[in-house]
C-alpha cells in the first residue's frame, strides 16, 4: 500500500519535472525577456547588465534550478501584459474557474452516470434512443457553439438567465470569492456550467452505458440472477459497482479536461477565470502567464491522477495485495 503510493508520487514528480522543463524553456527562450522588459531604446551595455542581473548568463542547469525553486514558492515573475505578479493574477481568478469546473463536473458525472445506466438497462425504449441520438449530435457540437446557442435561447430570447460574468460574489477568507452564496451568482453559474459539462456528460454517459452492458453480460451477473437476487440489487449493487471501476478513472481524468476546456466556456460567457486569462496571454504572447498556466494545469492533472489511483485502489479489492490468499 505504502510502496504503491510512494511509487505513484515519484512518477508524478517525474512528470512535473518534465512539464517544468517545457515551461522553463517556454519562459526562457520564447520571446526575448530583455527586449520585452526594456523596450527598443536600451543600449547593448544596459541589456547585458540586465541579462547578468537576471541570471540569464548562468548555465542552463542553474537557471532551471532557479526557475523550479521560484516556481515551488509560487513566483512566476511579472505578467508582460498586466504588469502584475503572475501568481497573484492566477490566484485571484482561480476560484471562478474551480467553482465552474466543480459544478459542471458534478453535473456531468450525475447525469452521465444516470443516463448511461438508464440507456443500458432500457436499451430499446424510445427515451434511450432519443438520449443516444441527441448525444451523437452533442459530440459534434463544438463547446463554444453550445454556449452561444444557450445564450441565444435562455438569455436573449427567454431572458431567464444572465449571459456573462459571475454575478455578485462574496469574499471568503483571504482570497477566495464565491458565487454560490448569492442568487445572481448561482444564476450566472447555470449556463456556463451546462455548456462546460455537456460534452463530458456525453462521454461519461457513453462510457457508463458501454461498461454497464459489458458487465451485465458477465457470469457473475448471470449467477446473481440465478440466485434470485432482485433486479435492484443486481443492477445497482452488483453491476453498477463493477461499472464504476473503469468509469472512475476516465471521469477523474475528465475533471482535468474540464478545467482545460473552461478556456472556451470562460471566453463565451466572459467568466473571470484563469482560462480567459490564459487565452489573452496566448493572444498577446504573455509568456510568464502561459508558463504558469501550464504548470498549474500539470499540477491539477497530476493531483487528479493520484486521487484517481487511490480511489481505484479503494474500490477494487483485487489491487490490495495486503493479504496473500490461497489462490493463484
Amino acid at each position: 500500500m505504502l510502496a504503491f503510493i510512494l511509487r505513484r508520487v515519484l512518477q508524478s514528480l517525474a512528470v512535473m519535472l518534465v512539464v517544468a522543463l517545457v515551461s522553463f524553456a517556454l519562459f526562457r527562450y520564447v520571446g526575448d525577456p530583455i527586449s520585452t522588459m526594456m523596450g527598443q531604446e536600451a543600449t547593448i551595455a544596459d541589456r547585458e547588465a540586465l541579462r547578468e542581473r537576471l541570471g540569464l548568463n548562468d548555465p542552463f542547469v542553474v537557471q532551471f534550478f532557479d526557475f523550479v525553486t521560484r516556481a515551488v514558492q509560487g513566483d512566476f515573475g511579472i505578467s508582460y501584459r498586466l504588469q502584475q505578479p503572475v501568481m497573484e493574477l492566477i490566484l485571484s481568478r482561480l476560484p471562478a474557474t474551480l467553482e465552474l469546473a466543480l459544478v459542471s463536473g458534478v453535473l456531468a458525472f450525475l447525469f452521465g452516470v444516470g443516463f448511461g445506466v438508464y440507456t443500458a438497462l432500457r436499451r430499446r425504449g424510445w427515451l434511450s434512443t432519443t438520449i443516444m441520438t441527441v448525444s451523437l449530435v452533442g459530440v459534434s457540437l463544438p463547446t463554444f457553439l453550445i454556449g452561444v446557442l444557450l445564450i441565444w435561447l435562455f438569455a436573449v430570447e427567454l431572458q431567464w438567465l444572465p449571459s456573462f460574468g459571475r454575478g455578485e460574489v462574496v469574499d471568503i477568507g483571504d482570497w477566495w470569492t464565491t458565487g454560490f452564496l448569492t442568487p445572481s451568482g448561482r444564476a450566472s453559474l447555470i449556463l456556463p456550467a451546462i455548456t462546460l459539462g455537456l460534452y463530458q456528460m456525453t462521454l461519461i454517459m457513453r462510457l457508463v452505458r458501454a461498461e454497464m452492458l459489458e458487465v451485465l453480460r458477465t457470469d457473475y451477473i448471470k449467477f446473481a440472477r440465478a440466485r434470485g437476487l432482485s433486479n435492484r440489487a443486481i443492477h445497482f449493487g452488483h453491476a453498477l459497482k463493477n461499472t464504476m471501476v473503469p468509469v472512475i478513472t476516465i471521469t477523474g481524468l475528465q475533471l482535468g479536461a474540464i478545467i482545460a476546456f473552461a478556456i472556451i466556456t470562460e471566453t463565451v460567457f466572459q467568466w473571470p477565470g484563469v482560462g480567459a486569462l490564459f487565452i489573452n496571454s496566448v493572444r498577446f504572447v504573455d509568456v510568464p502567464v502561459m508558463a504558469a498556466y501550464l504548470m498549474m494545469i500539470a499540477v491539477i492533472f497530476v493531483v487528479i491522477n493520484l486521487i484517481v489511483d487511490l480511489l481505484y485502489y479503494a474500490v477494487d479489492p483485487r489491487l490490495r495485495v495486503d493479504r496473500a490468499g490461497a489462490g493463484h
Partner: protein
Amino acid sequence: MTGGKMQEPLLTVRDLIVEFPTRRGTLRALDQVSFDIAPGEVLGMVGESGAGKSLTGAAIIGLLEPPGRIAGGEIRLRGERIDNLPPEAMRRIRGRRIGMVFQDPLTSLNPLYTVAQQLIQTIRTHMDVSESEARKRAVGLLDRVGIPAAARRIDDYPHHFSGGMRQRVVIALALAAEPELVIADEPTTALDVSVQAQIIDVLKEICAERGASVMLITHDMGVIAETADRVAVLYAGRVAEIGPVRDVIQHARHPYTAGLMGAIPTLEQDSDRLVQIPGAMPRLNAIPTGCAFNPRCAHVFDRCRAERPILQRAAPNHHVACWLTEEGSA
C-alpha cells in the same frame, strides 16, 4: 412417460421448444424436449456442445438470453407451471427452489464483494432472517462445502481463493436458500483435474443430505457414470435417449449414444465398431428432416430420413428416439 419412482416428479419438462428469432428466420434450439426429475434424484444430461444442454438449464431457471424464448411445451415444478410465471414470481423461485452452479468459478463470483456479503445477501433475499443469523448460516454452509477455517475466510474476497475453493463457494451460494433442485452446468470443466472429483463429491453429498435433486449437465461420461441415477442424451436440441445410467451405458439403444460411449450398438451384433462418429452435429439452421442424426448414422434407413422418431419405451424406465428400437422391439 418416465417416472422413475412411484412418487410425483419434482420437475416435469414436456415438449419444451426454445427458439431464437434471427434475421434469417427462426432457429429452433430445443425441439420437444421431455424428461422428469424425481425428488432426490441426480439426472445427468450429456451431449456435444451446442446440443442444447445448457439451454435446457437456462430455460428451466427462466434465464434464457434474449432473443431466445420458450415457444412451446411446459415446465412444472411439483406440478405447478413455472415457464409462464411473471418475472417477479420467477425470481422468487430462482435461488429459493431452483439453484444453479455455473461452469467457471473464476468468473461466477462478483470480484468486488466479499464471500460473506454475497452469501448473506442471497440468504436474506429468500429467507426472513437477521444479518447475524444469515452470517451464521453462511459460515455453516462454507464449512459444509469444505472451506477450511470458514469463519475467518468468509470475509475474504473471491480472488483470495483458488479455483477449486471458489467452486465450493459457488456451490454454497447456489444452495444458500436450500433449493429443491440444483442445476449444475459443467461444474468441473474449468477446474484442475485433481479437484474435479472432490467438487462433484461435495455437490453430490450436500444435495443428498438436503434431499435436493440435481440436474448435472456435462459432456464427461465418466462423471455421469459415477454420479447420476439416470442420464438423458441430447442431440441437436432433441432427447435421443433417456434412462438409468447403467442401462444407457451398458445397453445404449441409440446409435448416437453408442458412439458417445465408444461402444458397439448392442442391437446389431455384426455392425462395425463405432468408436468415433463421423461428421459433426448439424447447425441449427440445417437440421435434416426425419431423425436429426441420420446423416451420421451407420444404421440409417429410409424411414429415418422421412419421419422423426418419437421417444418410446425400450426397456423399463429406458426411452429411446430411434426407429431401430421400434424395429428391434417390435
